[in-house]
């Protein structure tokens, strides 16, 4: 009787838990109400590694388009090695930038060329300067956006929003005119992916706004995907070494676990049989 009661109780619970989970999963998603297009990122999954040509194109888009407003404070030129550049290329890349270098004998500021150990310089000297130039809005730093805009869910992975998809979503869902009934304040733009739909950033990408060095057609979607890949790399530069080491650790520990299982079984053989007390 009690067992049956228990089974019924547990069954009811399981069913109601599933129903509640199902009912709520629809509104569980995080930052964006807009259903973001999900891309197959080559760097996703346990074995996924960065698409280097895409990273290089993304760097080009960042440098030629985004960098006029967005900083990339935490990335040093030396790290561009991960994008497939060699030391000389990185030195040449860094030398295109100028950095303040103390003062001369007359108290005037001196400048020097950039070195690989320098960090990407910010487009504005400070936040006030940036807001002044951008209608009061502050263009966020790019270093961690790839990670800070994603919503990962362990138990309902289908509700996860990936940072790269979100970035592409922002760049690709501008509307020239706001839908009927939406008041568009001065200096604002309508964007489907952005929370609240009103975004200060003007649509930054147009077809062929950059000319890719590798000849890839520079469609808006292509550029958005490349810059999203680049931004995810900037946020998680150690992803490749992390996944490679993870594979080794998990293989090693799995074999050790199997061996220890048999060791344990061997140690317990007599005790399990009860030989010592029988």
């Amino acid at each position, binding site marked *: 009787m009690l067992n049956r009661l228990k089974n019924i109780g547990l069954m009811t619970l399981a069913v109601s*838990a599933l129903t*509640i989970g199902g009912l709520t999963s629809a509104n569980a998603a995080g930052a964006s109400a807009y259903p973001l297009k999900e891309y197959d990122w080559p760097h996703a999954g346990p074995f996924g590694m960065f698409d280097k040509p895409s990273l290089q194109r993304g760097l080009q888009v960042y440098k030629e388009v985004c960098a006029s407003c967005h900083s990339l404070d935490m990335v040093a030129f030396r790290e561009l090695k991960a994008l497939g550049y060699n030391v000389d290329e990185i030195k040449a890349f860094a030398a295109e930038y100028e950095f303040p270098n103390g003062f001369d004998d007359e108290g005037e500021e001196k400048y020097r060329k950039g070195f690989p150990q320098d960090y990407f310089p910010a487009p504005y000297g400070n936040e006030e300067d940036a807001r002044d130039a951008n209608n009061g809005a502050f263009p966020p730093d790019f270093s*961690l956006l790839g*990670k800070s805009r994603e919503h990962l869910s362990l138990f309902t992975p289908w509700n996860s929003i990936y*940072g790269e998809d979100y970035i592409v979503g922002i760049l690709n869902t501008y509307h020239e005119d706001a839908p009927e009934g939406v008041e568009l304040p001065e200096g604002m733009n309508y964007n489907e992916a952005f929370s609240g739909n009103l975004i200060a950033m003007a649509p930054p990408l147009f077809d062929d706004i950059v000319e890719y060095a590798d000849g890839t057609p520079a469609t808006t979607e292509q550029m958005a995907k490349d810059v999203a890949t680049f931004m995810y790399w900037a946020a998680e530069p150690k992803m490749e070494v992390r996944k490679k080491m993870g594979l080794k650790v*998990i293989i090693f520990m799995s074999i050790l676990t199997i061996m220890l299982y048999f060791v344990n079984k061997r140690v317990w053989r007599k005790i399990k*049989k009860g030989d010592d*007390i029988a």
Partner: protein
Amino acid sequence: MGSSNYQPTNKAVKWFEDRLPILGLMHSTLGAGYLAPRNLNYWWNFGSLAGFMLLVQIITGVILVMHYTPHVDMAFRAVEHIMRDVNYGWLIRYTHSNGASMFFVVVYIHILRGMYFGSYKSPREVLWFLGLVIYLLMMATGFMGYVLPWGQMSFWGATVITNLFGAFDFYEGMGESILHLLWGGFAVDNPTLQRFFSLHYLLPFVIVGVVILHIWALHLPGSNNPLGIDAKGPGDKIPFHPYYTAKDLFGLSFFIVILAIFIFYMPNIMGHPDNYIEANPMLTPAHIVPEWYYLPFYTILKAVPDKLFGVIAMFASILIFFVLPWLDGSKIRSAKFRPTTAFFFWLFLLNTLYLGYLGTKLPDEIMIDMAGGIDALTMGRISSVFYFAYFIVIVPLVSRMESTKPVPTSISQSVLDANKKG
């Protein structure tokens, strides 16, 4: 931790042992000198796993401190410096952050195992208290650790949680004084970060001390076991080494595989993405949530309309575990022989998980789409009432009234019986 019959054969070792009998102490604590019940199942692995996680957290934490700067202007950048520039810094930090979560997983299972098999009952009440003290210290340590990266959730989590203590406003200005003491100023700011850093470094070593007391208190009565009966005769017990060292090593190795999956393949899934945005006191996140391991208690806090009573209910929901040994009036420890107790135990567990799930929801989110929509606040209140009813009504009544199953006379007898059947 008890006398030892450890007799070293090596002369030098014996010379040392006569002057400091520390090897005998190890022998009688974790070696062949400690006799444990022969029937411990895999749920008993979680004690040693918790000890392992404490070590992992201390070692990774000490290394992180070498590269971290506890200052509001530098903390966020220092963590990214660890992630980007320090050799294997990403590995150390991801191990520490995921390790904290896994430490709580392990400790929760360890506590639930104690609840199910009645390990809190006489004569192990003090052992149970010490475990709860460890858990409370872990909560404080985990909370302060989450503040250190100085991201948005660090700052706003710290603001919300510290503000709770302002509810203790029993005389004019008392709540404010408590807050000023916690903050070291008039809001969460640099002094707060620095004192949290100091305490986050200190408390783990306090935990180590209480763990030693916890093991001491364990070795007087000895381990409980799945049958919940006292281990009496020599046939009931086996030496800890090699039997449980082998079993614990196997469990540990398997556990490390799970831990590695999190560290290497989903290192950020336990954290909140907003913590990759530097703390900004002028910008409140849309939705402030604490770390997952506080969520059930956060729901209880939100379920009570009055601030002071909400805070009291939240603390009571944890402190009530201290009186569990007396709420439970059963003569039998293990829920194996108490079917009704077992049923309500699982119900309690499901309800607590649901409380945790509700903790991530906004109060007006619709949880059940019927009767015009039942929101998260209502569900949180129902679940909170059940949570307390479990302790105050269900356990005291069920434990005193239920009809129990026959309990075996001894551990060795039950082993022999099982062998005859199987």
